[in-house]
């Protein structure tokens, strides 16, 4: 079907020679660039271009062509001049034909010297996941993807080769050559993705010197292929449910525990008859929905003639959350048009343009104990009923005085308000009703236009102007409501709208020159790039007290006095980057490989002393198995060694931190109601701020063993120094804000391994992949500070975790328990060297704290390092099994070695509900040695951060299990289709973990990584899907 080519030219060429042309593909029909085609017994021939095409002249009318490609079986065929041929090459287990995107160009994978992981469309097509990051999870070693929450549309936390820097480890995304900044990758419809390349080591990433320190993710979208028009539809529909429920106390158990705590604390019985309360309200059942739908539909059309190709797609993705879907959901519409045109033989022109519209509701916090639905469901007492039907109760406070503002269900019944648990905790169903009018939206136009000029053979000049034009905003409507004494809006409704826009642009110019000097293959790239991310601004306004009762009716066509429509606005501070860069690739007979990169970046974030940073790298490769001396054998079919070193940079800090800026820092009232705004320095200046630098050493081995096994092993050592951090100054400095400094250093050392097995037995097609990474992270320097505080406890200012030299980043830090005192004798016996009691104030049932510093008493200094929040070991397993028309995909991934700080219960709300573990609390000698007594009153059993809260974070999860059936080609054709496949798929079907919270995957930034404050869990989903091509 593939169309060709260049026939028109042949008649014009001198008659003495014949034109040999054709297309080389692999056994899947994918075109192969860089394949060698020669006339047998001669040196006449050519290599295939990016589209797998070759064309050359030969004097004879008939020839035997020898077609070869690294990793393939060489094929010979008879050809007649002027008649194009199709050549399909057969491959051994590991496909080395791939071309990988390396930044500002492509490279044959076989000669790559850095560490680049590549995920192709074929791997993604059958994976029903909503976001790009999800597609990478578990796919490739050393790329850790942790869901920050199961909230629809939520971004995952992605880190490449560990946490690169204290100030952020988000990799740089580059889509079709356009840098796209963190958090904004959700415009991408991942059905449009042709390939994702992850530049893991510094030697590869150095070409993106700026902000490449945490690695680079290159996304290439699909392009049309010359040939008949292809119409493709793919879609799936699924339902989602919660995977598990937390074991919370029911009303009777809650009342029993509260009574006990009150009595022990010197209070009275709170609930005279706990049994009468029965099981009470299960707030988890209230917030979790059943069978929340998720769906995706995509149409694409692609095709073209040899000189012009196009790819157009229209996609829709919709997902409702498993928690309160009426306020947590995500919808995305995408349109894409990619096209390339060969205007002249020496001139190409093209564009990649996408438009997306997203609308989302995130009506609850994803991992926050200050309210939100999950925190409320976990902490609310089970005694309060969901709705109040008893009129006597309604005649009492707090209902009686708020009859107009209490929230009611569809039948007009008031939602229950807890008498026991207050602060931010509210009846979740009532809370949902107050949030339904809130949503956020975004419109993004992302793309580039480029043209390429090939003035002389081997030289390509390319100019690309890319950008991202974004519009986004939110609307929110707050009705009049009374949720509790601390959560109410009693006087006026309010309707708020905010609009923002930003334009980022990137102008890239490159010159690439490729030439073969004998056996020396050289490619040189030179380029410049300018980026501007200054053009953002936003405005918003709130309308207070509009005459409507419902968010549906809220609008801004009411005339209000100026006082009742306060507004605001803001402009982004300017931010610009300018760069020049060069890269030299050298290859000798596919044996000796070298890549050298030099990039100089300038950033407006630094003062004039340190504007520019220079980022060099060099990497070497040796394909030992291509050596003449390498014996032909069936054990090691391929062996390649790689070694590289490079330096990357990071300018991740707000604008103008090198100087001291004046801002509004607090006002004061003079006279009657005259409010003046005070101005002063926002933070102490640091004029010597300079680029943060990450250097990385990489050593890798690629091998093909026994024909069918592929094996990759990599070692790396990554050092980050001069990290750009804010410094929490002592309060006595009196600064309004914290300054930035180049203060800390960190080291990541690791091993990554990947093993693949690919083999076809008759009808059975096996493709198994496994990967694993072990990363050891350590902070090596933290400046003048002894440590930096990370998250703090809610009931005290003790930190939960800190950054400290010699420990992994954000290591958990707290007191260490050594069981529970069972008797007074045990307390009396717990003495120091002077015979004094170590815990003189303890009472049986209290924790016995370890005196880790041995000073004979329990003080702040007895806190110790109690666990690593970031899993050092991560792994993924994928099995693709095809049998005739059936296919099976199993994808599993897991982590090992981390701890989770489980703080679901609000410690500062004594009356908060308990997890079932509390039923096993200490109530007398011998009752418990790990859960202390409960009491209302001063004691530090619970308010101290300690190993009591730490749980094993290891898990193994079957992410995807999928069974598909492809209609046999003949049958498909009869009903007018090229291909047709249907499948059923399950996500998150099974998780093996000891963790007691909802979900052991707790991403969401370093500050709360593996700290569970009620994380929105991921859904278990079942889907069925169709993929048809016409």
């Amino acid at each position, binding site marked *: 079907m593939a169309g060709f080519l260049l026939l028109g030219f042949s008649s014009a060429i001198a008659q003495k020679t014949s034109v040999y042309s054709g297309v080389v593909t692999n056994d899947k029909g994918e075109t192969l660039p860089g394949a060698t085609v020669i006339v047998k017994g001669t040196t006449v021939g050519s290599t295939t271009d990016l589209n797998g095409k070759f064309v050359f002249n030969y004097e004879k009318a008939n020839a035997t062509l020898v077609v070869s490609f690294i990793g393939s079986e060489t094929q010979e065929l008879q050809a007649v001049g002027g008649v194009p041929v199709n050549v399909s090459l057969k491959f051994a287990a590991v496909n080395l034909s791939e071309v990988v995107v390396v930044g500002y160009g492509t490279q044959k994978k076989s000669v790559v010297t850095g560490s680049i992981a590549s995920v192709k469309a074929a791997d993604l097509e059958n994976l029903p996941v909503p976001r790009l990051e999800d597609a990478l999870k578990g796919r490739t070693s050393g790329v850790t993807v942790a869901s920050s929450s199961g909230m629809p549309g939520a971004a995952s936390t992605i880190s490449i080769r560990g946490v690169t820097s204290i100030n952020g480890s988000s990799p740089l995304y580059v889509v079709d050559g356009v840098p796209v900044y963190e958090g904004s990758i959700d415009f991408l419809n991942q059905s449009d993705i042709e390939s994702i390349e992850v530049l893991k080591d510094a030697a590869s990433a150095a070409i993106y010197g700026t902000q490449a320190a945490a690695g680079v993710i290159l996304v290439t979208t699909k392009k049309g292929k010359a040939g008949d028009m292809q119409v493709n539809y793919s879609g799936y529909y699924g339902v989602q449910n919660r995977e598990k429920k937390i074991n919370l106390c029911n009303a009777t158990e809650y009342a029993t525990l509260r009574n006990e705590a009150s009595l022990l604390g010197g209070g009275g019985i709170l609930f005279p008859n706990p049994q009468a309360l029965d099981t009470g309200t299960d707030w988890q059942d209230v917030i979790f929905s059943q069978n929340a739908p998720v769906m995706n539909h995509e149409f694409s059309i692609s095709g073209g003639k040899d000189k012009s190709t196009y790819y157009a797609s229209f996609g829709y993705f919709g997902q409702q959350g498993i928690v309160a879907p009426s306020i947590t959901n995500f919808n995305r519409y995408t349109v894409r048009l990619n096209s390339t045109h060969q205007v002249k033989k020496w001139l190409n022109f093209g564009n990649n343009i996408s438009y997306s519209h997203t609308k989302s509701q995130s009506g609850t916090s994803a991992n926050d104990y200050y309210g939100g639905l999950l925190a409320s469901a976990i902490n609310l007492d089970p005694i309060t009923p969901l709705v109040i039907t008893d009129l006597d109760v309604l005649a009492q406070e707090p209902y009686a005085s708020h009859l107009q503002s209490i929230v009611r269900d569809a039948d007009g019944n008031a939602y229950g308000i807890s008498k026991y648990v207050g602060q931010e905790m509210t009846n979740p169903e009532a809370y949902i009703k107050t949030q339904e009018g809130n949503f956020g939206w975004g419109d993004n136009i992302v793309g580039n236009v480029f043209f390429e000029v090939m003035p002389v053979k081997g030289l390509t000049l390319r100019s690309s102007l890319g950008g991202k034009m974004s519009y986004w905003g939110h609307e929110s409507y707050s009705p009049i409501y009374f949720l509790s004494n601390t959560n109410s809006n009693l006087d006026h409704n309010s309707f708020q709208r905010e609009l923002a826009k930003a334009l980022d642009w990137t*102008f890239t110019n490159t010159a690439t020159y490729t030439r073969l000097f004998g056996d020396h293959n050289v490619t040189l790239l030179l380029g410049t790039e300018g980026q501007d991310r200054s053009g953002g601004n936003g405005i918003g306004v709130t309308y207070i007290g509009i005459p409507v009762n419902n968010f549906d009716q809220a609008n801004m066509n009411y005339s209000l006095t100026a006082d009742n429509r306060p507004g605001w606005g803001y402009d982004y501070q300017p931010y610009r980057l300018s760069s020049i860069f060069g890269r030299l690739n050298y290859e000798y007979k596919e044996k000796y490989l070298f890549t050298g990169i030099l990039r100089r970046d300038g950033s407006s974030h630094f003062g004039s002393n340190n504007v520019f940073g220079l980022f060099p790298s060099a990497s070497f490769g040796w394909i030992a198995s291509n050596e003449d001396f390498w014996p032909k054998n069936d054990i090691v079919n391929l062996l390649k060694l790689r070694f590289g070193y490079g330096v990357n940079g990071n300018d991740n800090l707000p604008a103008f931190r090198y100087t001291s800026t004046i801002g509004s820092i607090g006002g*004061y009232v003079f006279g009657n109601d005259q409010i003046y705004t005070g101005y002063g320095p926002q933070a102490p200046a640091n004029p010597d701020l300079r680029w943060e630098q990450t250097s990385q050493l990489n050593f890798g081995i690629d091998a093909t063993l026994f024909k069918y096994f592929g094996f990759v092993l990599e070692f790396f050592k990554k050092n980050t120094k001069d990290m750009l951090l804010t410094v929490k100054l002592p309060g006595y400095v009196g600064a309004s804000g914290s300054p930035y400094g180049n203060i800390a250093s960190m080291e990541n050392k690791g091993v990554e391994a990947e093993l693949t097995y690919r083999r076809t037995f008759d009808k059975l097609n096996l493709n198994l992949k496994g990967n694993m990474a072990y990363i050891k992270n350590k902070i090596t320097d933290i400046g003048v500070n002894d440590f930096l505080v990370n998250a703090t406890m809610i009931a005290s200012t003790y930190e939960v975790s800190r950054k400290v030299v010699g420990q992994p980043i954000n290591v958990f830090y707290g007191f260490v328990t050594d069981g529970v005192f069972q008797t007074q004798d045990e307390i009396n016996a717990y003495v120091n060297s002077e015979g004094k009691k170590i815990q003189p104030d303890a009472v049986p049932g209290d924790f016995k704290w370890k005196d880790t510093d041995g000073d004979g008493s329990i003080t702040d200094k007895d806190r110790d390092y109690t666990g690593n929040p970031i899993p050092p070991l991560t792994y993924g397993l994928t099995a693709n099994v095809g049998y005739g028309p059936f296919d099976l995909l199993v994808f599993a991934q897991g982590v090992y070695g981390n701890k989770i700080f489980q703080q679901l219960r609000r410690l500062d709300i004594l009356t908060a509900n308990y997890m079932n573990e509390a039923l096993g609390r200490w109530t007398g000698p011998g009752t418990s040695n790990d859960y202390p007594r409960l009491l209302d009153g001063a004691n530090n059993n619970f308010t101290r951060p300690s190993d009591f809260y730490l749980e094993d974070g290891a898990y193994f999860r079957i992410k995807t299990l999928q069974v598909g059936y492809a209609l046999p080609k003949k049958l498909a054709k009869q009903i007018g289709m090229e291909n047709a496949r249907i499948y059923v798929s399950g996500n998150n079907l099974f998780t093996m973990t000891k963790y007691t919270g909802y979900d052991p995957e707790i991403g969401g930034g370093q500050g709360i990584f593996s700290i569970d404050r009620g994380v929105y869990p991921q859904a278990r989903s079942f889907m069925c899907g169709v993929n048809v091509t016409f």
Partner: protein
Amino acid sequence: MKTKYILIFLLVAGVTSLFSSCKKSFLEVEPIGLELESNYYNTPEQVFNGLVAAYSNMSSETDYGINWYANKLAPLNAAADECYAGGGGESDMASYQVWDNYTLTAADGPQSKFWDMDYSGIYRCNLMLQKLQNDIPGLGTDLKNRYIAECKALRAYYYFELIRLFKNIPLFTDPVPTDAIYDQVQAKPEDVFALIEKDLKEAEPVLPPTVPSTENGRLTKGAAQAMLGKVILWQNNTARMLEAADWFNKVNTSGIYQLLANYPDIFSPAYKYNKESILEIGHSGSQQAWWGTGDYRGNIYSTMVGPRSYSAGPGADSDHTYYSGWSFNPIIKSFATSIHDDPRYKYTVADLDSLKKLGQADYMPGYKNTGLFIQKYAPLLKWKAAVGEPVLNWPNNVIEIRLADTYLMEAEALVRGGGSTARAQALLDAVRDRVKLPSKPATLDNIYEERRLELATEGHRWFDLVRTGKAATVLAFKGFVAGKHELLPIPLNDLNNTKLVQNPLY
């Protein structure tokens, strides 16, 4: 082929021009809407803005979630024998609760907020004093000198608060240099007192005796004199008592101030900056603040002390019709009982339980509810802001020093320093006579008792108990430990990585 060369030329030209645009100039960008410190403090307006920032720390209504909603009254009242912390539960505003029950630790308590707010104020004063040494075009010498005097008096105010609460504090008269941040040590208390007195003495002659009404809240000569007296009195040096009395006397006899005839008017938003007020912290009911807008200038303390889930009943008068609050600082029963027969009782204590019995009120009991609430700063419905979130926009000012206070302090200083007993008696009588109470001998005990009655819940009690050495006895029921709880612990954050030493027994 011609087009080819034209295009190549254009491309090459484009690339070259970009190379040139990649020069440094492309990266030299100007901040939008942000002044640089190096260019600031150059106009009279900018200097005034800096002065406002220096004042700003006298009241510290900050944003939601920082656990510091209101001014310092809430923790100070919770710490004294007047009130409990109260609130919604045992650990609602834990930093107040642990001062209420004296379980303070370096990590838990209100200390970091006092510390941070006061040091922030000191930094702003130090910076202003540095900048005011420059020649500022358009700023007249008199005004400049007044600004300098105000900054010195403010610096003294902040240091006085710190030294009373922490005693052992680092002392700076310039912004701390970046490279010396972690090298600072605590100063000798006497050096701190010396600076406070020096600052006030230098400011006092320059500050205006009175200010126009639009400048109400700005520091005056009388405020500096009263502060000087307080600072000397605090040091408990009998030899200097007459010196203190002399400063109070300057205020009390200046003719500028007089006792208001009607006691409750002192606290009413209708009588802001009244004749009795010497140093007053301003709040506004017209900021139109909403949750999240930040830098609240309304008085959130009023919300804090309001009864929970309040509703008015028939017959409630406007001085006893409230707006729902958060039930902090319930007044301790024994304290209320001990002042019950005083005419000032009903203006000090809002007896919600009595109102409830009369059917004039209903409310939901908060933590440690006593049925008795603070009346002086109560959120009365009649003062509710018309626009904005009501709980953030109470207009009630807080008077830090008023004439009755300086009368009683002069009397105290005279008695302790062996000064004129007649004068002391006249001063005490004046305070009592205002509320129609008969004369009582001007003994030290009677003066202290009068302070307790006159100034109840105004944030003086805890300091009075500490400076008179009565705290350990009076506050024993709350867990006060002598030798420890006279001071707050140095905040944990300021012990981390620094050379500061924790206060004794913490």
